[in-house]
């Protein structure tokens, strides 16, 4: 598969109140952005269980994005702080699994930031495109 033809598969866990609405805004505002991100809506970035992230990688994601409200703006007061703590620790652990930091991203996108969502999405896609596929196959018995 040539580098140009590689279309990263990205999974995004977006919080219902800010980022998902922000994504919605980007959409209603007719902003175009990379179609690579496949969005899973969660109520809060604090709901994102690291298992989901691992699962996404294992299922073949080349990058995972968690996006929530800006610090201090969480609809649930502090869910995004938990997301932050988990993200930092999980990134560190993922490196031990040979998964680059860049593939696992945390972004704050508010409901009003359609443009930022667009930017994040495009940037992330480009970054992963540059990094190449992860194509996780580790541990399958058919090695």
């Amino acid at each position, binding site marked *: 598969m040539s580098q140009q033809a590689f279309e990263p598969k990205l999974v995004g866990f977006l919080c219902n109140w800010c980022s998902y609405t922000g994504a919605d805004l980007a959409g209603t505002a007719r902003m175009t952005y990379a179609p690579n991100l496949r969005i899973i809506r969660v109520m809060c970035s604090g709901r994102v269980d690291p298992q989901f992230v691992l699962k996404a990688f294992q299922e073949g994601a080349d990058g995972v994005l968690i996006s929530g409200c800006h610090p201090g703006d969480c609809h649930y007061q502090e869910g995004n702080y938990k997301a932050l703590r*988990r993200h930092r620790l999980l990134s560190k652990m993922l490196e031990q699994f040979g998964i680059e930091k860049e593939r696992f991203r945390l972004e704050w996108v508010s409901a009003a930031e359609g443009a930022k969502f667009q930017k994040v999405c495009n940037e992330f896609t480009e970054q992963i495109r540059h990094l190449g596929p992860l194509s996780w196959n580790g*541990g399958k*018995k058919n090695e």
Partner: protein
Amino acid sequence: MSEKPKVAFYWCASCGGCEEAVIDLAEDILKVVEAVDIVFWPVALDFKKSDVEAMEDGSIAVSFINGAVRLSEQEEMVKLLRKKSQLVVAFGTCAHLGGIPGLANFWDKESIFNRAYHTTPSTDNPEGVVPQEKSTVDGKELYLPSFFNTVYALNQVIDVDYYLPGCAPPRDLIMNAVQAILEGNLPPKGSVLSPNKALCEDCDRNETKPEKLAIKDIKRPWEVILDPETCFLAQGVICMGPATRTGCGQRCITANMPCRGCFGPTDQVIDMGAKFLAAFASILDADDEKEVARIVETIVDPAGTFYRFSLPTSILRRRKLEGK
């Protein structure tokens, strides 16, 4: 004599502690021997592979297999036993989850061989001899089992009926399991033969948790004098107890050591390490990016810590294999 059910014991990649656990049944082992007929136990009794091969399929009532599967030989043997047994019980953490040998999944065959045969300081191997699967000595071909890149838990190689968790499984659990098998009083297939709750359920220290758990500084057990009564997490020490299945009888806790997770996760949890990470990161006492970074920095080897016993059965199973 032939009335007695036939039982086999086998070990794969393990330390031998599980065998000891059997011995450790002490006089209870006499009751076991009285009740069953041990047909295969390479550690204790001189049976050959051919003896097993000679048995009828399904003639062994139950095979207790400990250790992870690391070599082709082990794969062959467990597959053979599976064929000959009515029930296969994964005995101990390594068979159950991959165990300590499973930590090798952070490397691959090549790097392990390189380390073991070349770079360890104690290695004296001037010719750079490395085990070969096939070699010719005096015109005769010799074969060694092949060494896998990845360590597997037992159920990743064969179908497993029950799991006896623990490194090593405690004597009560073994006795209960044997009892249940003998009485035919068995839970659904695939069960882990230990209560499906986390260790905190039984932990004496659970009541000492503060109203709000918040960890600012993470300490390793040797860095502090641990209070023998207070929850380890409340003391800033990583304890896998909340994410680990109970049933062990708090062996480590009573020895004033935090739980390291040998019993594996509860049924609802797929990935013990990730789940513990989620819980543990949540209670870090920091909202500020820098402070979070500072605390995370102090957690040495998170993967090794959270997946100490369960790497092969985790979602990712192993480190990414380069070039694949």
